[in-house]
């Protein structure tokens, strides 16, 4: 029995002990000072560099677009997100023109509504969140001396998905068919929308959200597993901490929205009445799901910018950050608290006073961790000797704007005050103060700061100051008056207003200011994109910073770090003598690429002890194909066409299987290799030591959160609706449902058994288990579907059967994925991709099935049992 208890350590002790022992690192660790001081033979070093350069060479010519390295994908990602920011900014300018004078008709009501919907949508989903992921993909590996992200092709796939999805969503504006029910898409307005705008929003953004989650998974795994040896968690650059927190928030915040999108699209396409009060639905459920995502979203946007500030401030002060632990605790605290605030977007929905009080208090509480982070920066600047460099100027300006936004935030968190200003221009002012101060300005500061690292050129100091003062003054001219406009009663999202309400001059001032901001962005954009070919290369560490990214070579080398250093301080470039010199010489780890493969070092989660060498994937076109088909699968249903979408989805799955089969978890030509400094590491691991297993684990956390969102829906209807299930409603067939769940558990047991038996060398029996598993899974879902099919449970009749069906549909869809994985493993054992010592795919499949098994049991209980006892 204990063999399938799930504890990987037990299992290893019982069966694969020798394998685990054989794969343990061998050799001295940590390296001693003498080992590090030993000089490298320059000849050897040059030959190593040559091999590394060849392995990491960026594809040339048109093949450049097949690159998957973080420095290319990250850059494309950043520029794409920046482009959509400019688009969304132009929409804002058009709106300001329309609102400059009362009763204006430059934009029609319909177009204005499309514009404000797309302004919010694009700024949130096409700019703010992707930009964080883009910047992180671009610079995070460098902070940690890593060569690349752990799953480069996944980043590339995510980027191409993002590009396709955003062009689709944004392009709808050109056809006058854009979403126009607000970026929050409240039903019933958005469910009743006759055009395809709402479908574009729901499907296009779900697609982009999936890409966002993929990037978040990769960033989390990168932070946890790809740090340089010795960089324990308490030595990580603060930026990495923020990546971890924000990545975690994305993993838990986006899925409820995806669950909401699913319900929403089922209502729009198939008339399942989740938000229709006539048939037991409730439009408020969407508001809950949306804001459970939407509020953490605010911090998902804000924290990365604080992270950038946390890199710039110590450099400006020329000393380590003061209050490192306080900042980490506050960042984590903000992350947690941000999930408890969503109701403050719903203060005016008539909730009981007790809820309002609770969420008011929680909303005020988040001031404390935010304040700690800001005061820690001030404290660092106090003890250091500050150079007011250009990046620091942007950070200081950001602080001035953000504190104003934070203070109005304290005001609107008081529920009764919010009754007045909710959905007025006061809120427009508040949120732009927080987002410009908490996102736009720090990011631009970060662009100036990191530009020499990214492009190995410098931006203009003079233009940078111009851009700053234009944006800073323009911003205040635009948004400061809006506080008053809102208090004078102007609601948000109005395409026009009558004269005589005292709003005219305020709106005119705001409109003028908007153009000043635009001028600032024009200067910045020109400075960013203008050709800089004639410039001499900048110094390697122009700001005299202390973190590892500034060790990168000039001129640029695609390998990232020449060798991956041993790190035992927070600011290695300040605190570890000769570190750059030794990295350059290849003195540290992985200074060579004997096999011509792209490799990076994987370390343990807490202590960053070397674990194994991960062979990461190289340039590929399969990611483009996979992204294209995935895009088609999401985009085609917009037009209410379903079969081609299913076909496209199948092609997408085929592409992904091809990609996984050909490039992941391949049996290496050598089990162990010398990585330098006398250390020998394995080249293949399975289970919790492998990055792939971590990727699956975090993906499944996100996936389960979406499922939890659906289950939340059931309980929400039950508490908010006295007739759930409605009197006289049929129930699911209990025995079929129970039988289905049992078959699912049996399928799970079969796949788990296959893993164990395979480890013991009985591949033939393992194969039989892997043949049985999909059959059992098929029986399981057949039982569950029949349990709802046989009684009279029509999902369009009432929200109760619709909710039961959606849980079963969710389980069925996941089971299809689970069966594909089982078959993949079966094929793996047949074609030699999986053997007793190389079973990473089986481990990951088992992990997926742990979650799927739980999902099936919960679905069976909630659909088969719960309605009978409610």
């Amino acid at each position, binding site marked *: 029995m204990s063999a399938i208890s799930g504890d990987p350590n037990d299992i290893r002790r019982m069966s694969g002990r020798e394998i685990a022992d054989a794969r343990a690192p061998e050799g001295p660790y940590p390296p001693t000072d003498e080992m590090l001081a030993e000089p490298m033979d320059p000849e050897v070093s040059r030959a190593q560099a040559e091999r590394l350069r060849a392995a990491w060479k960026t594809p040339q010519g048109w093949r450049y677009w097949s690159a998957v390295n973080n420095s290319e994908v990250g850059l494309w990602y950043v520029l794409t997100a920046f482009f959509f920011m400019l688009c969304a900014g132009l929409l804002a300018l058009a709106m300001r023109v329309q609102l400059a004078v009362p009763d204006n008709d430059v934009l029609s*009501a319909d177009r204005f509504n499309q514009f404000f919907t797309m302004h919010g949508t694009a700024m949130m989903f096409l700019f703010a969140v992707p930009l964080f992921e883009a910047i992180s993909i671009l610079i995070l590996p460098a902070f940690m001396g890593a060569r690349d992200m752990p799953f480069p092709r996944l980043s590339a796939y995510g980027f191409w998905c993002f590009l396709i999805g955003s062009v689709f969503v944004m392009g709808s504006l050109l056809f006058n068919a854009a979403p126009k029910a607000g970026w929050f898409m409240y039903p*019933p307005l958005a469910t009743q929308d006759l055009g395809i705008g709402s479908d574009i929003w729901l499907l296009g953004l779900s697609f982009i959200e999936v890409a966002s989650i993929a990037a978040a998974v990769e960033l989390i795994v990168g932070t946890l597993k790809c740090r340089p040896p010795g960089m324990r968690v308490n030595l990580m650059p603060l930026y990495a901490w923020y990546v971890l927190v924000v990545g975690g928030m994305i993993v838990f915040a986006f899925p409820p929205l995806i669950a909401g999108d699913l319900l929403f699209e089922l209502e729009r396409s198939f008339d399942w009445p989740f938000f229709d009060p006539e048939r037991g639905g409730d439009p408020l459920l969407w508001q809950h799901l949306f804001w459970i995502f939407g509020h953490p979203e605010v911090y998902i946007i804000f924290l990365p910018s604080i992270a950038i500030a946390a890199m710039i401030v110590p450099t400006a002060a020329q000393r380590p950050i003061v209050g490192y632990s306080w900042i980490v605790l506050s960042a984590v605290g903000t992350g947690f608290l941000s999930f408890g605030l969503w109701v403050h977007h719903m203060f005016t929905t008539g909730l009981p006073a007790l809820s309002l009080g609770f969420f008011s208090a929680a909303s005020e509480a988040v001031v404390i961790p935010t304040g700690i982070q800001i005061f820690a920066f001030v404290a660092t600047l106090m003890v250091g*000797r500050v150079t007011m460099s250009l990046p620091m100027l942007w950070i200081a300006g950001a602080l001035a704007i953000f504190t104003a936004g934070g203070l109005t935030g304290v005001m609107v968190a008081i529920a009764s005050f919010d009754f007045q200003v909710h959905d007025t221009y006061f809120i427009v002012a508040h949120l732009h103060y927080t987002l410009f101060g908490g996102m736009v300005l720090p990011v631009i500061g970060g662009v100036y700061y990191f530009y020499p690292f990214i492009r190995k050129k410098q931006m203009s100091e003079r233009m940078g100051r111009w851009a700053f003062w234009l944006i800073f003054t323009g911003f205040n001219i635009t948004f400061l008056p809006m506080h008053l406009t809102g208090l004078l009663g102007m609601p948000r999202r109005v395409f026009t207003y009558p004269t005589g309400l005292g709003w005219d001059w305020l709106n005119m001032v705001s409109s003028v200011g908007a153009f000043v901001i635009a001028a600032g962005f024009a200067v910045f954009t020109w400075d960013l994109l203008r050709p800089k070919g004639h410039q001499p290369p900048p110094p390697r560490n122009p700001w005299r910073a202390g973190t590892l990214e500034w060790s990168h070579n000039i001129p640029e080398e695609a390998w990232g770090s020449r060798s991956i250093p041993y790190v035992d301080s927070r600011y290695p470039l300040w605190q570890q003598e000769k570190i750059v010199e030794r990295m350059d010489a290849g003195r540290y780890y992985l200074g060579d690429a004997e096999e011509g493969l792209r490799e990076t070092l994987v370390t343990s989660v807490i202590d960053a002890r070397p674990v194994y060498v991960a062979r990461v994937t190289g340039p590929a076109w399969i990611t483009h194909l996979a992204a294209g088909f995935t895009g088609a699968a999401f985009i085609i249903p917009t037009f209410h066409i379903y079969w081609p979408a299913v076909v496209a989805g199948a092609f997408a799955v085929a592409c992904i299987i091809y990609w996984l089969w050909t490039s992941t978890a391949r049996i290496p030509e050598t089990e162990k290799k010398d990585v330098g400094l006398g250390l020998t590491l394995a080249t293949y691991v399975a289970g919790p030591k492998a990055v792939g297993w971590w990727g699956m684990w975090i993906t499944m956390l996100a996936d389960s959160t979406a499922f939890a969102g659906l289950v939340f829906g059931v309980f929400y209807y039950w508490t908010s609706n006295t007739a759930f299930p409605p009197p006289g409603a049929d129930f699911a067939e209990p025995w079929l449902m129970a039988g289905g769940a049992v078959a699912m558990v049996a399928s799970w047991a079969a796949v788990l058994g296959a893993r164990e038996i395979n480890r013991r060398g009985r591949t033939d029996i393992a194969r039989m288990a892997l043949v049985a598993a999909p059959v059992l899974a098929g029986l399981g879902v057949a039982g569950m579907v029949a349990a709802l099919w046989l009684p009279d449970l029509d999902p369009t009749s009432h929200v109760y059967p619709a909710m039961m069906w959606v849980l079963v549909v969710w389980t069925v869809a996941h089971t299809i994925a689970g069966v594909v994985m089982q078959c993949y493993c079966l094929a793996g054992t047949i074609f030699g991709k999986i053997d007793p010592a190389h079973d990473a795919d089986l481990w990951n499949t088992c992990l997926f099935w742990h979650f799927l098994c739980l999902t099936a049991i919960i679905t069976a209980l909630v659909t088969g049992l719960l309605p009978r006892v409610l």
Partner: protein
Amino acid sequence: MTSWRVTRPGIFAPCLLLLLLPACDGPQSALAPAGREAELLADLFWIMLAGAVVLWLAINGLMFYVTRINVGHMPRRLAEGIIIGGGIVFPVIVLAALLGYGLTLMPLTRVPGDGLRIRVTGEQWWWRVEYWPEGAEAPVVAANEVRLPSGRRTDIELAAHEVIHSFWIPALGGKTDMFPGRDTLMTLEPLTPGVYRGQCAEFCGESHALMAFQAVVLPEEEFADWLEAEAAPARPPSGPLEAAGQEVFLAQGCGACHTVRGTPATGAVGPDLTHVGSRLTIGAGTLPPTAEALANWIAHPGTIKPGVEMPSYDELAPDDLAALAAWLEGLE
């Protein structure tokens, strides 16, 4: 109840106030309160504003000081004190006090009413208004204007027909959302008679911007008189032109959507027009209640209010249109 309430903001920000006060007026201003709730919330605002200005100056002043004036190394102990004092101790105290004050206001804005009940339903994009005086068995139905007795607490029951709206009269109090299939409740106690403007505050579709109304606060006796008059059927046409107008109205089938009590028109899709001539605006706060505006509206409702459900009657003969408008204007 009012003993601890800080009276008007003068104490806190005299200079700012002098500058801003004239700018704070307006028929839809939350800073020119004319009701109990709005007054409490305006006071709350001025107090919070004063605090926010002081705190903003303190934080950014400190930032300016350490980055521009005293850029040398300051003691680390002081810096850590700043984190704990500024980041934890100070905000805990200030926020606790603010929450104490802010949350005790909430029950004051939710004291139940003492008589009249009004039910307002959000339509696209207008307001159906029903007055239910105490003990009434049937409501007095009106539209696009809310009249309230001053000095009394009126319960306002809110609902919506198709999509979510939000009911808001800034000069009288905060807003509350209106949902299809779910009633919400708010209470208002207007203090100063006058005419204020309200507007839908939740985005509700194409012409969300054009969904406003007048809120008329009347002294109690005047309100009672008005309500009695409002309950009466429409006055008969006062002349031949008006009579012709009524005929056009009935012949065109306007009664399928509109009610004019005292005539065969009993439609309930659109606003009740029994006393439309006595309203301060037509088209839900969009146009003045003149015959020209009425004629213009009837002929081109979709131009004035994009997406409106009312069909346009631009094919009506100009004479018919004028007669119809004259009759409607006369329905006081």
